């Protein structure tokens, strides 16, 4: 089921995929055994002439013991999933590293705009760079995003990075990622936001360090001349 | 009558009990509705200390007066219930009438308050505090209105002496009326007294 995940290009993507595979293994085991038993029971206990069903109410602990045993296994696996998942969740959504690059993301119906602080490293100054649609980032750097929306709820989604975060209007929502590979990847809106939702697409453009610097310089030049 | 057939079992609960149970379930669902609204208000209110200033525009004397009115009406409702238990028709009708009139007084005072707010430009869309104020008190007033109508219907039944076969309805209406009263007891301090 998960052999067609989009390629993973982020540092934490492997953790998320790991959880997916862990759950897949656990769930797959129950799927096979339970469906298997269902089919087996239906075939094995089909009505036959002269064979009477066994009267068994399952009201005693003795009769219930294997149910209790199986449920104990379920509880154990539940907590396994929870604990493994909690670490990954904390890594992606809770413990934000200090960013090497800070970018302000502005969403509105139906377009993305990205604001870079410019040479002084400060937002809301004259040298801020405002770039439509394409999110340029350097590879192997921690990117800190601040997500904002002007109108309705949008969702900032980078499938290859395994990042998704809804953007609430009126708030500044943080997010971060670090990419391990250069190239061009998808950026989509994952929350129904109106008529043009399907076309609210962007691009994630990952440069190497020098390429990123060059792009910054060129964009600044274009903007301020 | 559909219920009549059940007389073939002595062990089963009476129709009176069944109906009372239903009223309690109804009140339970109403509690969830007002609970959702009041809970939302409290969460907003805690995050917004600046609303204290707006609560200032609400008149505590008028609110207290209205609280008193509703409390008195609950008392007369109890009197109506007690009299109906004694099968005292005159007292029941009088108490029902007074309860309904007190309820109407409450609504009139509420209307007067609303008019005052409107004249100062405080409409439901004049900010979130006013949105909550009008929604919560409006929904409550709607319940008061429904209560008044129910009570007046009982009153007319009483005048025509049709009250006795359905005396338990006085009790059920009373339960509902007390509930509406209790809701106000929550709304009043939350809205008026948090300045």
């Amino acid at each position, binding site marked *: 089921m998960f052999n067609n995940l989009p390629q993973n290009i982020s540092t934490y993507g492997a953790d998320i995929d790991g959880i997916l595979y862990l759950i897949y293994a656990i769930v797959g085991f129950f799927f096979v055994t339970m469906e298997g038993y269902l089919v087996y029971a239906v075939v094995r206990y089909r009505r036959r002439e002269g064979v009477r069903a066994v009267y068994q109410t399952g009201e005693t602990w003795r009769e219930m013991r294997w149910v209790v045993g199986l449920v104990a296994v379920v509880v154990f696996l539940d907590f396994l999933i929870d604990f493994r998942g909690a670490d990954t*969740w904390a890594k992606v959504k809770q413990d934000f590293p200090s960013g090497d690059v800070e970018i302000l993301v502005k969403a509105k119906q139906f377009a993305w705009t990205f604001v870079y602080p410019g040479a002084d490293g400060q937002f809301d100054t004259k040298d801020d760079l405002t770039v439509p649609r394409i999110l340029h980032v350097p590879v192997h750097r921690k990117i800190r995003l601040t997500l904002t929306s002007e109108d309705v709820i949008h*969702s900032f989604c980078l499938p290859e990075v395994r990042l998704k975060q809804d953007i609430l209007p009126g708030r500044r929502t943080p997010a971060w990622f670090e990419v391990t590979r250069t190239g061009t990847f998808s950026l989509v809106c994952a929350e129904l936001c*109106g008529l043009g939702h399907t076309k609210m697409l962007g691009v994630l453009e990952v440069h190497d360090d020098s390429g990123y610097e060059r792009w910054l310089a060129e964009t600044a030049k274009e903007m301020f001349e | 009558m559909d219920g009549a057939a059940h007389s073939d079992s002595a062990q089963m609960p009476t129709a009176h009990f069944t109906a009372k149970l239903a009223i309690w379930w109804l009140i339970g669902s109403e509690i969830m509705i007002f609970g959702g609204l009041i809970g939302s208000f409290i969460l907003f209110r805690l995050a917004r200390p600046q609303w204290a200033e707006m609560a200032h525009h609400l008149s505590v004397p008028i609110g207290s007066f209205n609280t008193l009115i509703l409390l008195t009406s609950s008392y007369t409702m109890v009197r109506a219930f007690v009299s109906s238990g004694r099968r005292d028709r005159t007292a029941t009708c009088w108490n029902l009438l007074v309860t309904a009139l007190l309820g109407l007084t409450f609504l009139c005072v509420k209307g007067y308050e609303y008019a005052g707010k409107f004249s100062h430009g405080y409409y439901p869309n004049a900010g979130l505090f006013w949105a909550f104020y009008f929604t919560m008190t409006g929904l409550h007033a709607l319940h008061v209105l429904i209560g008044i109508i129910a009570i007046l219907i009982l009153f007319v039944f009483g005048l025509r002496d049709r009250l006795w076969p359905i005396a338990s309805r006085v009790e059920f209406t009373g339960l509902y009326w007390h509930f509406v009263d209790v809701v106000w007891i929550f709304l009043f301090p939350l809205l008026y007294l948090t300045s």
Partner: protein
Amino acid sequence: MTNDPHGPQKFIWKYILSTDHKMIAKQYLLTGLVMALVGAFTAYLMRWQLGYPNTNAPGWGLVTPDKFNMLVTMHGTIMVFFVGMPLLVAALSNFVIPLQIGARDMAFPRLNMLSYWIFVLSCVALLASFFVPGGAPAGGWTGYPPLSASEQYTGVHWGMVLWITALALEFASFTMGGINYLATFMCLRVPGMTYFRVPMATWFLIGASLAFFFSVGPLIAGAVMLLLDNVAGTGFYIPAQGGEPLLWQHLFWFFGHPEVYVIFLPAVGCVLEILPVFSRKPIFGYRAIVWSMGAALALSYIVWAHHMFISGMNPRLATPFSITTILISVPFAVIIFCMLASLRQGSIRLDTPMLWGLGFLATFLIGGLTGIFLGSASADIYLHDTYFVVAHFHYTFFPSVFFGGFAGIYFWYPKLFGRRYNETLGKIHFWMTFIFFNATFWPIFRVGAGGMLRRIADPTQYRILDQFKEMNSMISVAAFILILGQVPFVWNFFWSMFRGPAADANPWRAGTLEWLAPSPPPHGNWGPGLPTVYVGPYEYSRPDMADDFVPQYRPVGVLGGPAGQA
């Protein structure tokens, strides 16, 4: 009285303004099935657009993005609230609860009629939204504001207002219904029908009503606020006016999670009713199942934020909600294990109701297991709002509404109409549905894992979806056959109603009380005296009896397990 059970009845009193719980059940059943047609038509249009993007859908035309958003919204709303609720909650509760507990009717028959007509009104309000200026609501069935709170974002005003109105009417109707079912259940059980002798279907229907009852209130409050945002210019959910969009999500999902149980529990109840009858064995672990249902209900109120992991709420809440969510697997594991154990050493006959029941088990299991992925907050970061979710909830909703629902309909058909349906057609219907349901929704898991997002009007816009072009067309074809596969049912349902062979009172040789009444039961259900109950509901193949079942109304002693004791 006008609808005196003994006098001749005028058409209007018998079929329209009836207060007979069985007639009201049939009214709900028919209304639900008609709404299912509308729901299926919207599904067809969406699937056409997804399978054959930007071509004209036969019988309608081009599904443009604005239309697509309306279709998604209406499909979800209709299927959950106007198909699932009337079929599983209202029709079944009305028909089954009084008959199984030995009552002559609901506790409040006229309130019951009123509930139905308010429900009809809400259907009309919803369908009317297709025809008002601006069109149908387009905010998704979850209606997240600010999108749903103001015309400026969707271009839809009246549609939105009608949507909220329809939901409010529906909630009022089902609250009144719920009061009725609960009061009936608590007060009208015949002597001997103790709480632990109540048949499973009734227990689970009551569980559904409880789930609904204690969760819907806050959403009604929320809906009032949303309505005022739309019509009175308040800003409860609009940040620019100081409002808070997340409030709606909390209120919606505080209701929404119990709501999925409202639809799922009656289906489980039907299947639990059917398993013992067709395997001639007591249900395994009656008490364990009832208590598990209670535990699942309780848990369902503290899991709602699993729909909101990435909504922007405080991320510290995610792990606690992950834990409660995944813990829900425990009571449901108990129930499913008990169901499987009920088959063991049985004497199984695969009549149509049993096929649907087993089909429910086989498919719902997939829905339940895939829920574990979505309950894990970290896995949800990737899977949220993808087609994986779409596949997951269809694997829970569809089995509940249709596998569970059809199991119930076929099982009680003889009792409903006094005639037998056609077995062959029933089996054809089952296999068509079973095969093509899986053929439709199984690949959707893969498409979702591949990154296809839900609620998208045009898959050709996405580069990563190019690889799924063919698969999407195949899914659509399977979905069309799935819808066509319902034709045998419609034929069977109406043809057998008038032409089917007459059914006797107890065609399945089942032990619960409804099979004591004649088929169909007359107004008032029982003759002059009420039945009395002596044993539990599932006394099949008792070793001390020659006959292979003991009906609840037969005065015999109790053997073995406490299911038979008071």
